[in-house]
């Protein structure tokens, strides 16, 4: 499967009469995007704001971040199973408005939503302080239940993003990257002397607002399966999560899946990147056993010499991470794990809920419990008082002057376990 990804570099976003990209500026027709995002009987109102890097703007509670993309050539469309049919995606040509993002906010759904600061210390922790954000604030009708609320906001974000993505369809990209993974036997034969690597891509699926979707299917209900790495670049994986903001994987990061990008960077040079095994993080022991068995079986079946395993979330899924590690290492396949830590605010507690001596190669995205004070911002888009209830905050996190003291857990993608960020931790 061969995919050409053309990036149109967006250096600014502004409202305009027509939604279009001109000279690296994304102009957005405010009314039109609001209408399209709000096209759902369950939505009462939609407001649209812009938030650019360096502005004194805070967005909270953030639900998801989505990157505008459009399919230019090849089968299917962006976000299969939701915004388009379920054709296999991941081949042909896709354009990306690189540097732009849709951020969804609105009344809180669960407790586990995030904060994006566009300047100050908080901006250092979130990658979305560096994107030109089109913030879509969605308010559903009053009678809506939480799980439906999540669906409504998620879909509004996808609609808004695809609407913006269309503006890039006929624009010549500034950069083009080509990614290719061949059918297994051909792929193995292409670089017969390089070590074969598989990416085990764990997805949060504990249910009850902890959901991830693959081609529209709730991943909780799948058995682990093979995925061509290029599929994610067309939005095959979508976040439906209200898990702690720091380490849930926003749809934006799935579309830019960093381990996949960095494995491709070595593909044909030092390794032979065979593809991905996507697996879930369910709550029952039987589910965990089944999924880790199937994952290990697939990784072994593919003939991998080594694997990177990334986790999503923390606590309960630490057990899935450890099971995957044990069973894959148990077949003589070398692993590197990506996780984050919950070592307490003082950093002195044990970081993970489970452990294995085979997990001797571990990348950490930092201690989510570390406390930070975010300075007041001139503008807050959303509801600042939710700082007191989102995971990582506490009653009193929001101060009278608008500053917030909370764990970095509250910051969207601060400790991203797909490896998107630079934060890490060390022992003192």
């Amino acid at each position, binding site marked *: 499967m061969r995919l050409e990804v053309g990036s149109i570099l967006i250096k600014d976003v502004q409202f305009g009469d027509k939604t279009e990209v001109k000279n690296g500026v994304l102009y957005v027709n405010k009314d039109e995007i609001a209408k399209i995002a709000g096209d759902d009987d369950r939505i009462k109102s939609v407001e649209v704001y812009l938030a650019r890097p360096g502005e004194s703007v805070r967005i909270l509670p953030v639900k998801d971040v989505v990157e505008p993309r459009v399919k230019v050539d090849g089968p299917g469309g962006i976000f299969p199973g939701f915004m388009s049919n379920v054709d296999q995606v991941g081949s042909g040509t896709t354009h990306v408005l690189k540097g732009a993002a849709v951020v969804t906010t609105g009344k809180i759904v669960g407790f586990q939503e995030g904060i994006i600061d566009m300047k100050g210390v908080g901006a250092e922790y979130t990658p979305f302080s560096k994107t030109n954000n089109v913030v879509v604030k969605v308010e559903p009708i009053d009678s809506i239940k939480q799980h439906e609320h999540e669906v409504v906001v998620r879909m509004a974000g996808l609609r808004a993003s695809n609407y913006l993505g269309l503006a890039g369809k006929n624009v010549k990209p500034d950069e083009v990257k080509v990614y290719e993974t061949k059918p297994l036997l051909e792929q193995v034969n292409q670089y017969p002397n390089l070590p074969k690597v598989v990416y085990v891509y764990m997805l949060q699926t504990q249910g009850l607002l902890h959901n991830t979707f693959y081609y529209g299917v709730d991943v909780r209900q799948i058995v682990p399966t093979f995925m061509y790495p290029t599929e994610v670049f067309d939005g095959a994986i979508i976040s439906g999560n209200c898990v702690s903001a720091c380490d849930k994987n926003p749809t934006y990061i799935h579309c830019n899946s*960093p381990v996949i990008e960095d494995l491709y960077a070595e593909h044909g040079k030092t390794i032979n990147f065979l593809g991905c095994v996507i697996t879930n993080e369910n709550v029952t022991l039987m589910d965990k056993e089944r999924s880790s068995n199937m994952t290990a079986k697939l990784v072994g079946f593919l003939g991998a010499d080594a694997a990177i395993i990334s986790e999503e979330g923390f606590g309960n899924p630490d057990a899935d991470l450890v099971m995957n590690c044990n069973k894959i290492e148990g077949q003589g396949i070398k692993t590197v794990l990506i996780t984050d830590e919950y070592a307490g605010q003082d950093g002195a507690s044990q970081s993970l809920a489970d452990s*294995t001596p085979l997990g001797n190669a571990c990348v950490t995205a930092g201690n989510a419990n570390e406390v930070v004070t975010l300075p007041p911002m001139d503008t807050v888009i959303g509801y600042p008082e939710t700082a007191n209830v989102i995971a990582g905050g506490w009653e009193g996190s929001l101060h009278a002057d608008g500053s917030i003291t909370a764990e970095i857990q509250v910051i969207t993608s601060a400790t991203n376990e797909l*490896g998107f960020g630079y934060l890490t931790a060390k022992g003192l």
Partner: protein
Amino acid sequence: MGKCKIVHYINQFYAGIGGEEKANVPPEKRDGFVGPGLAINGAVEGVAEIVGTVICGDSYFNENLEEASDKVLDMIKSYEPDLVVVGPGFNAGRYGMACGMVAKLVDENLNIPVVGGLYEENPGLEIYKRHAYFVPTGNSATSMRQAVPAIAAIIKKIAAGEKVTEGYVAKGVRKNYFAKERGSKRAVDMLLKKIAGEEFVTEYPMPVFDRVDAQAAIKDIKTAKIALVSSGGPVPKGNPDRIEASSASKYGKYSLVDIFDFVSSNGETAHGGYDPVYANEDLDRVLPVDVLKEMVKNGEIGSLHDYWYSTVGNGTSVANSKAFAAEIAEDLKADGVHGVILTST
């Protein structure tokens, strides 16, 4: 800062007051250095100075925790130090614990650095290492000559306003920082090294848990000798060994010969991690002596070991627990016990 002012904490033995027989002396302070302070003071001459020494008997500290803590802290504070040195305590159990507790007191209340020295297996180290720069020492005072320069090196760094990066036992505290490469790149780089068989450094060393394999089943339970061991804190009424409510530093061994049933007058729990009301009413709920004695009477088990062993699991370090278990296990083996019922809470 000017010359770094140091207060030195030592026990009665190193102050020359006396050994075990003097372990119950209450806290006192003396200006300047005392005992091992002489060598430490000499080793940091010019940049730092021991302005006062606080002394406390090991038993006194461990048995009068609250009062001793307050007094020791006040005495340390009275010198307005920039830094506190504890020990070195080598492998002395109670002295090591006291050094650790003083380190914690200073770290949490005075917000100034603490430097000490302990042997790697000293239980005080495992529990309190996050509160001080503990240099690793030998297991007895004969290694004082190595310990002093190591302690002095850290004091000099601190006195010079430099960051202390080595020469001490890792505090076990995790601290965030921004790396040069993003996480995914670091993972790929680590994987390449692991594949090539090159040396790599994990960013999070996973803790190693002991896993104990189940033993073979007892062949004939009707002749087996069964013992009771508990981390639920079951002790005779009054807690005669004063086992701590949390972070236990000891375990107790108590006779079951005359106990057939626990009632509120012959047993209680020392455990501080759960509501003790029901255990204090009837300790059989934590240590099922009534049922086991009945089973012996009915011939369902061979016999019940004459003693029970008890400690408090609440916040107790793995290092302490392992040490207790090793001793208890030796005892049980020596007494021909076939099986143990471990109760917790």
